[in-house]
């Protein structure tokens, strides 16, 4: 796949090379590419607008089954909005999403049962213990209680949370909370895992443990979709990556294809732009405004 594959190529097929327009004919408009039902996730023309801001602008993407797919982009690129629309948590203004060939918005609850969405730490009932939270997640997905309990015990052991099983999640550290959130997304053994910034605020040890579990999951044929703006992580873990900016896909493909021999982070910066020379702030020399900074509080220390 060429790096010149802009979003339009995923959503639209290129005009046939043999049908060159003649002087008297106008070129054929690009034809929309139908969604791919054999992909884990197939998105066509996803669009979402919030007041004056277009968060997702006709995004199209295919995520292969069994891939470890990284969705990367700067803050405000539309990654979270896209994932929310794909997972049935936000109604798109336009577009189509297939999950394993199933139209998400035709029967959203069925689609949700096919996927495991990792909730954010403030999107869980943290007054439950870790064990209760996992059993709750399993039973909500329609699993029998006994099965939920058994799997919860397995997950707690896999995530090194057995000691904290009877502790309220509200008393967990940030890393433990992320683990329990991931475990709650996995308990019903979905074929697609969707994780939005899973390693944010997580210490390196917990991150490494989470990565091992996700890689293990991907080896069983599951598809993992993570969104992140940490390119080093994406480069290490993912098989495929899509660079999103301003609500559209700038480039998509395998990590090697997108990087094209360069460092992925450098390539990312080239694609999204926005870099500028370091700002020179003349006052950034440790001196507080109107004082030598040693004689007590000044206006610089006061809330403005």
């Amino acid at each position, binding site marked *: 796949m060429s790096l010149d594959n802009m979003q339009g190529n995923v959503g639209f097929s290129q005009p046939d090379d043999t049908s060159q327009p003649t002087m008297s004919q106008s070129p054929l408009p690009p034809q929309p590419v139908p969604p791919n039902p054999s992909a884990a996730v197939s998105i066509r023309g996803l669009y979402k607008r919030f007041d004056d801001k277009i968060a997702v602008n006709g995004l199209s993407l295919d995520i292969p089954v069994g891939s470890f797919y990284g969705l990367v982009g700067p803050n405000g690129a539309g990654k979270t909005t896209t994932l929310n629309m794909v997972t*049935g*948590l936000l109604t798109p203004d336009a577009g189509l999403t297939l999950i394993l060939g199933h139209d998400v918005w035709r029967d959203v*609850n069925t689609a*949700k049962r096919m996927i495991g969405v990792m909730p954010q730490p403030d999107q869980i*009932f943290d007054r*439950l213990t870790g064990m*209760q939270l996992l059993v709750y997640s399993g039973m909500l997905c329609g699993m029998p*209680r006994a099965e939920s309990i058994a799997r919860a015990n397995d997950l707690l052991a896999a995530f090194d949370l057995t000691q904290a099983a009877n502790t309220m999640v509200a008393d967990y550290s940030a890393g433990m909370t992320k683990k329990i959130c991931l475990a709650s997304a996995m308990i019903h053994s979905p074929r697609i895992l969707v994780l939005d910034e899973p390693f944010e605020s997580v210490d390196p040890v917990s991150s490494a443990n989470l990565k091992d579990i996700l890689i293990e999951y991907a080896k069983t044929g599951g598809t993992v979709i993570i969104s992140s703006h940490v390119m080093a992580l994406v480069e290490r873990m993912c098989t495929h990556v899509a660079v999103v900016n301003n609500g559209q896909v700038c480039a998509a493909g395998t990590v090697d294809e997108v990087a094209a021999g360069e460092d992925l982070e450098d390539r990312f910066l080239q694609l999204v732009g926005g870099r500028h020379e370091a700002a020179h702030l003349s006052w950034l020399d440790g001196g507080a405004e109107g004082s030598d900074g040693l004689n007590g509080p000044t206006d610089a220390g006061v809330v403005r």
Partner: protein
Amino acid sequence: MTAALTLVRMRWALTWATLRKSVWQTVGYAIALVFAVGTVIGVAALAWLVGTLPPFVPPEAPGLPPVNLLGPHGVINTVVVLFGAFLTLAVGLFQIMLLGEGSTMSPRKFALYGIPDRELQFGLLLSGLTGIPAITGVLSLLCWSLAYRAMGPAVVVTAVVAAPLAVVTMMSVSKMLLSLSTTLVTSRRGQGVFYIIVVLLFVGVMQVPNILVNSGVAEGLDVAGIALIAAAVAWTPFGAAFQLPYDALLGDWPALLARVAILAVAWMLCFMVCTWCLRRERLVAGKSSEAVKAKGIGAFGWMPDSPSGAVSARLLTYLRRDPRQLMMFIMPVFFIIIFSLQAHGESGMVWQSLIWAGWIFAIAESNGLAYDGRGFTMQVIAGVSGFTDRIGRVRVYAAIIVAYELLMFVAVAIITGDWTRPGGLLFGATFAAVGIGMGLSGLGLAEITSCVLMYPVASMDKPFSSPQGRMVAQGFFPLAYLIGSFVAMLPTGIVTIVMIAVFPIEFGMIYWLLIPVALANGAGALALGSWLGGKLLDARMLSVVRTLDSFASLQQ
């Protein structure tokens, strides 16, 4: 001083920003202003009226001394001092309960800026004094000086000077109580227990006048004795400011200066406690509270093995750990106490508490999704249907309503002695049935309103906090539930009226027929409400999630 004034400016900048952001906030603010103006005008009118009273009135019986109305240690003096002291304490409790730690002007928000503790505390106190409640208080007390106009200009001037002194005392006490509560009570369990105690205190204090009057205790009170109590309270910071005009009337300037000194010392003490709290915060900031443990899976082990059972188990587990929904369990007890004191032997007066309890049981559930907070997203992620959610919730609340009403039935039967009288239990059972019917129909309505009439609530971590936008909605939305509950019980009301109209004489023997009518009414309303609520929730699921996200941002 610069930092202090900056904090005042910041407070108003945040207020304007909030008003610009939300129409509801602007409406709420306008209503608050109307109330404030009304309060000032009302106090001014009352003061004018009081100022026209004669200083002494003839006694009710011959041979008794004239009644001292306006003079020192007279009726007005006693009432003003005691009411002022009560108000000072109530404002402190009210601050903790309903206003709480201001989410925007919390001292913790300024920890990074290196503002000295005294300057920060002074600035926060000043910013509190520039708020609508404080300004209303000062203006009202200034207008109250009109009550003393017949006593001479010195008394009026003293009352004018005393007005801001009283308000500064109220604000200082409030800030101190708030600082102590947030600094000393750090564990989650401790906060829950503290919240329960404060709520019990607040409701109890608010009910004391009612209880005193209805129990007849008020009638037997000795006026002279109360005047003595007021005289003692006038030497405490709570009542000192309200006694100052009378010191001026008596020309007792040493006493006046002594009381002003008491006020000044009280302010200093409150200020010192607040700055101590700030220092202590720095000592223990970041200390993790003791982790709460609970063995096993609790309710998840015995609720129905289904998604709705999971919803029920989660809800029940949370109800046991959520101090915010405590009122549901406290108010019925107060109903029994108050009606028992008013009954004077009429058992029906006490039995009616079962109906009022049924009426208010589901008030919290009428905004149930807001109490769930963003955790509700777990259900949305899992694709749980609206009806499944409603059934899960109804299972828990209906059981609580029925069990609590039955407990109340037993308690009232013992209190009234009706369990010994023939027909007494049947009489009580009729009230219990109507109470259960009321509770179930209210619950059915709550399953609808919780999807459409949502308003922000305090987070479980900060039950005392007041998220922006709560005041106005909390004033109006529960009305929809309260009025709607009565409407839902209309069939029972109509049957009752028909029975009385058609069988006026026999009604005393056939009233018990209302038992199946009320229960059927309640069950029918519950079923309809659950079904409709499920449909509404399915249709509005994502909108509810967005609303809960916005509520969460208000709680920070």
